[in-house]
């Protein structure tokens, strides 16, 4: 048995894939989710499997995550202006909406469930009558409406409906598609679970948009082609009604008839909005229909449902070629009346809590409509808008009385173009003065009690921040701190104060801004309990946003905040993996003392002492210390410091509970030690790593498969690392491999599959070692072949055999003995797989091309 001599450089060149310039990033461009089901057809010429090309749900999901992260970063306060495409912008908007109001996992949806589970018509029951029923006959209710489903299930059911709808459409069953979309639109009538509504809205309108697009395409097709498929006409972008043939018109008409027959108001409006662009086939002025729909929406009394209906209206209007600001202005004015009603209905059944939630849920709708109003608006139009919205002196009283209106004002000011602000400075100043006079200086001062004061400030702080009224801000903060110092902060005031401080923080670019705010820290010190912790979380989040943290004062401050957070039992004991602990870990990893590496190591030691109980933090600490060591290595002279870093890691390592993590960190530290030339340290660390591997099975018997894979890859990494480790003269070069082989043979949790992979790794390692050193003859193959035969699954056995064959053939010179092993393995592969299996074919091809091939195939 003899190892094949290898020329690694030449092989790398021969095997490298040709590089091709990619037009787009594979993870960008979120296309339609229907691609999830699309089987990607591999190009027949290619000999390898490209993992990126496989249709893989996980990959898809992670892509969605990426996009969402992107969204959250762009949906910040100023960053979304760059997006121009309306549909893309809408997609971003709905995504951020869903993120802002996530479906909580525990929410149970009673009244919604029936419709979605059985498709029965329960919508006619109002929620009050449902409650009545529930009171009268709880058992019956439990039987009928008792299909309780969680928000998550609800969402997935909606996605199913979407798939059903497109499927029915493509099967030419358009009536079913229509029925399903009516069903979906009806779901929007139920606002009983407030928190879920934005998510429901986002998904339902997505479905309705799909229907609208399909109907549009169908009628367009009818207008352009005859029944037998010959093109008779090509519709220009700005076609008029006279271009449309009678057939297409009649079909279009029938669609509007069908949706017009839906009795309930809300689904009727939603469906007509979805089909709104189709009015262009029937009339030259489709905006008239929109105007009517705007008015019809007034019939929806539910504030939330009507607000979101107007939001969808603003979205659908953008699909029309012409633009009508008047409609949107009516929407905003109607919304204003509706929200004033919500705010003034204090005595009714809606609790204050509920009311606040409704208003916060309505806010994004106002924001979006405002944005639509000012898109491409000329200066004159802007002036008209200001007049139309009635923001002027006569509204003074209203502004003071209804804090909700500040939402409208807030978003209005946010959207006003800067040149308008400058040219109309006087009016704008009036506007702001309105809010200042009424709501801040005068109104606020009247409120002696901290509670009232805070509530008012909470409502107006956004406007103040928006307009950089810094002197004003500081007087507000002073007001708060004065009142808080004298009377202390009561529990219910804490929540409002928390909201104000969080808003303030959201306007700070970095932590320096926060330090520069007068009174802020003083107020923070007065806070306590849960609210304090929440504010702390926001500060920490902001502190780590800018990456490396270098300023010692900031480090000290954030460390104190982290300690406070850590001591808050509510947070730390909640879950192992919650936000504060994640933030603390991130903070620790971002601290950078620059050249003062000793101080940094001291910081790490302090962290270990303080945050010892946080899971996962020690790993961060070891990473940081290893990084520090590498940094010190670059200066060469700090060898003793490198030693202390490694010592720190070595001391910290045994306390890590996860064995796999421990194994990996041992390896990492060993690598660092080897890089620093500390061979004996490195050897010791490898020993520890092998020990931790040994203690693996003692831990628990039922090892999850995913765990096994992690172990496997760690072991493989260990082998590849060993290639670099110089042999110990006392124990010989094969000391570690030997140890490992005996260890792995004794482990009961090793599955045949793992064994095969490990043996392959050993052979590769030894082959690599043999390039310079004496070969180490382990009779691995026999074990290998036995291990393969133990695999119960046929398909798995086949691919394992092929893998082993490839490994042996590329490592060893094909002697008679090896050849027979290889052909045996290929036989096994053939017996387990079909002959046109690509892996099998490529292996056989590989064997054929070996220089000294004598394998009988």
């Amino acid at each position, binding site marked *: 048995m003899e190892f094949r001599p290898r020329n690694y450089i030449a092989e790398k060149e021969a095997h490298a894939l040709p590089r091709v310039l990619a037009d787009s990033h594979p993870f960008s461009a979120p296309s339609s989710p229907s691609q999830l089901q699309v089987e990607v057809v591999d190009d027949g010429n290619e000999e390898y499997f490209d993992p990126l090309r496989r249709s893989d749900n996980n990959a898809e999901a992670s892509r969605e995550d990426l996009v969402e992260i992107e969204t959250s970063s762009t949906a910040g306060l100023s960053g979304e202006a760059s997006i121009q495409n309306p549909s893309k912008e809408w997609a971003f908007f709905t995504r951020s909406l869903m993120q802002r109001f996530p479906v909580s996992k525990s929410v149970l949806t009673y009244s919604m469930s029936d419709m979605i589970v059985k498709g029965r018509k329960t919508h006619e029951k109002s929620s009050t009558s449902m409650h009545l029923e529930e009171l009268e006959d709880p058992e019956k209710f439990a039987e009928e409406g008792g299909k309780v489903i969680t928000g998550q299930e609800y969402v997935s059911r909606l996605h199913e409906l979407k798939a059903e709808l497109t499927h029915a459409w493509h099967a030419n069953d358009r009536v079913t598609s*229509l029925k399903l979309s009516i069903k979906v639109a009806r779901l929007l009538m139920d606002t009983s679970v407030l928190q879920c509504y934005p998510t429901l809205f986002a998904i339902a309108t997505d479905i309705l948009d799909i229907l609208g697009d399909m109907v549009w395409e169908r009628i367009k097709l009818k207008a352009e082609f005859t029944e037998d498929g010959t093109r008779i006409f090509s519709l220009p972008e700005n076609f008029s009604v006279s271009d449309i043939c009678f057939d297409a018109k009649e079909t279009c008409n029938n669609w509007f008839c069908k949706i*017009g027959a839906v009795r309930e*108001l809300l689904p009727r409006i939603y469906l007509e909005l979805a089909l709104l662009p189709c009015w262009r086939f029937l009339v030259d002025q489709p905006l008239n229909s929109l105007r009517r729909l705007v008015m019809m929406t007034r019939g929806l009394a539910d504030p939330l449902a009507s607000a979101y209906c107007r939001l969808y209206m603003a979205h659908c209007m953008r699909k029309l070629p012409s633009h009508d600001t008047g409609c949107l202005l009516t929407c905003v004015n*109607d919304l204003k009346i509706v929200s004033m009603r919500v705010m003034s209905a204090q005595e009714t059944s809606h609790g204050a809590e509920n009311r606040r939630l409704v208003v916060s849920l309505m806010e994004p709708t106002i924001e979006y409509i405002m944005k639509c109003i000012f898109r491409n608006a000329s200066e004159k139009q802007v002036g008209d808008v200001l007049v139309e919205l009635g923001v002027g002196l006569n509204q003074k009283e209203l502004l003071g009385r209804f804090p909700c209106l500040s939402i409208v004002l807030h978003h209005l000011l946010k959207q006003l173009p800067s040149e308008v602000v400058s040219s109309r400075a006087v009016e704008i100043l009036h506007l702001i003065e309105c809010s200042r006079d009424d709501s801040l200086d005068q109104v606020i001062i009247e409120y002696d009690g901290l509670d009232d004061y805070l509530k008012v400030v909470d409502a107006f702080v956004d406007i103040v921040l928006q307009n950089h009224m810094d002197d004003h801000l500081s007087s507000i903060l002073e007001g708060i701190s004065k009142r808080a110092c004298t009377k202390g902060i009561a529990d219910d005031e804490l929540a409002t104060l928390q909201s104000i401080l969080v808003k303030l923080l959201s306007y700070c670019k970095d932590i320096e801004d926060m330090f520069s705010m007068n009174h802020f820290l003083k107020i923070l010190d007065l806070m306590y309990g849960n609210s304090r912790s929440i504010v702390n979380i926001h500060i920490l989040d902001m502190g780590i946003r800018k990456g490396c943290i270098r300023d010692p004062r900031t480090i000290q401050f954030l460390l104190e905040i982290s300690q406070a957070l850590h001591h808050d039992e509510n947070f730390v004991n909640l879950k192992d993996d919650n936000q504060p602990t994640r933030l603390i870990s991130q903070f620790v990893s971002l601290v950078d003392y620059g050249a003062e590496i000793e101080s940094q190591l001291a910081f790490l030691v302090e962290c270990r002492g303080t945050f010892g109980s946080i899971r996962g933090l020690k790993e961060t600490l070891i990473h940081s210390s290893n990084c520090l060591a590498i940094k010190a290595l670059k200066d060469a002279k700090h060898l003793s410091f490198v030693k202390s870093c490694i010592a720190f890691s070595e001391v910290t390592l045994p306390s890590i509970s996860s064995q796999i993590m421990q194994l990996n960190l041992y390896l990492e530290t060993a690598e660092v030690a080897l890089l620093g030339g500390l061979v004996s340290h490195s050897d010791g660390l490898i020993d520890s790593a092998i020990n931790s591997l040994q203690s693996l099975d003692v831990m628990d018997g039922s090892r999850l498969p995913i765990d096994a894979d992690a172990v496997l890859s760690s072991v493989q990494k260990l082998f590849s690392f060993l290639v670099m480790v110089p042999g110990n003269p006392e124990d010989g070069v094969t000391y570690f491999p030997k140890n490992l082989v005996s260890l792995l043979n004794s482990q009961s949790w090793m599955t045949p599959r793992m064994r095969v992979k490990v043996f392959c790794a050993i052979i590769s390692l030894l082959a690599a070692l043999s390039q310079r050193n004496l070969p180490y003859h382990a009779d691995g193959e026999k074990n290998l072949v036995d291990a393969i035969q133990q695999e119960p699954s046929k398909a798995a056995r086949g691919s394992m055999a092929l893998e082993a064959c490839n490994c042996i053939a590329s490592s060893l010179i094909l002697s008679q003995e090896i050849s027979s092993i290889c052909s045996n393995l290929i036989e096994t592969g053939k017996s387990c797989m079909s002959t046109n299996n690509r892996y099998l074919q490529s292996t056989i091809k590989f064997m054929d091309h070996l220089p000294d091939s004598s394998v009988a195939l």
Partner: protein
Amino acid sequence: MSIELKLSRINRVYRPTELIEGKIVVKSSSSISHYGIRLAVNGSVNMQVRGGSAGVIESLVGVAKPISIVNKIIEVRPSGKIASGTSEIPFSINIKQPGEKNLEKFYETFHGGNINIQYLLTVDISRGYLHKSLSTTMEFIVESDKADLLEQPVSPEMVLFYLTQDTQRHPLLPELKSGGFRVIGKMSTQCSLSDPIVGELTVEASAVPISSIDLHLLRVESILLGERIVTEQSLVQTTQACIHILLAYIADGDVCRNMTMPIYVILPRLLTCPTVLAGPFSIEFKVAVVVTFQSNIAKMPSKSDPTTPRLWLAMETLPLELVRTRFYEQSNTFTARTELLVAGLMLRPLSSVAFHRPPHVQPI
């Protein structure tokens, strides 16, 4: 062996003076010899009295004789043979010859509760006494002739209405009676079948929160029973069936006060026809605006007539004349008034109407 009728128009809508064209499709494994292929057109008004509103003379129930509008037979093919396989035999038939005097007017197709106006096309292939003849029947839909259409445009006249606690003739909840309410609006009195009912509505005040405001279409079908109508007025027995159709909600929930909402409701095509005032029968329409107030005692009565006076309901009924305008004639120009639409299929079938519903095709 199967036989099928196919009409040239997919929606099967024809006017009386128009030629009905189509083909007879016969599928057979062997050739068929026959004694002639005949096509019959039959149109009639069927009246039937049901329910308890028939009045004093219960024995009169069901005696109204059907009125025949048209009944004619043409021979499409003389006796001969039809080859095996699929054969298509084209035909064309006039329902009404130009200049021909017909006894009855060609009323539009209508399927109501008591009155059924139906036009049928029947093909019959007689194969002698030894074999059963092959036949099939299909309904087609008749709409008014061009000549009969209203020449002048639909009257833009609107009727004003208002609902307060004092306009209601039935008892109301005490809190409604004392607190008061006022809902005003206006609505068209004449409406083209192809147009929506339009109008507007405003809730000016209401002490009790409103649960919903809906629009109902009332269809009044009257049938004259008895022989000597003209001479003996006293013997005239009319039976009326009032069928309500919930058209649409105008408002859902306690809407804001003093906000004007549009009334815009599309008429259901199958359940309506132009208002008919014929001698022996009449079909008329009314629209009811129903305001439902929130009340603890208001249980949703699922089956019963929602226009029945109840403590928590307020309503106003307005007459509505339905007319056929020249909608289909001008295929390429939709005027502002006929901006819209015909009717929908998605309405739930009427509760107990047993008449055969035509297989109406509206491609979407």
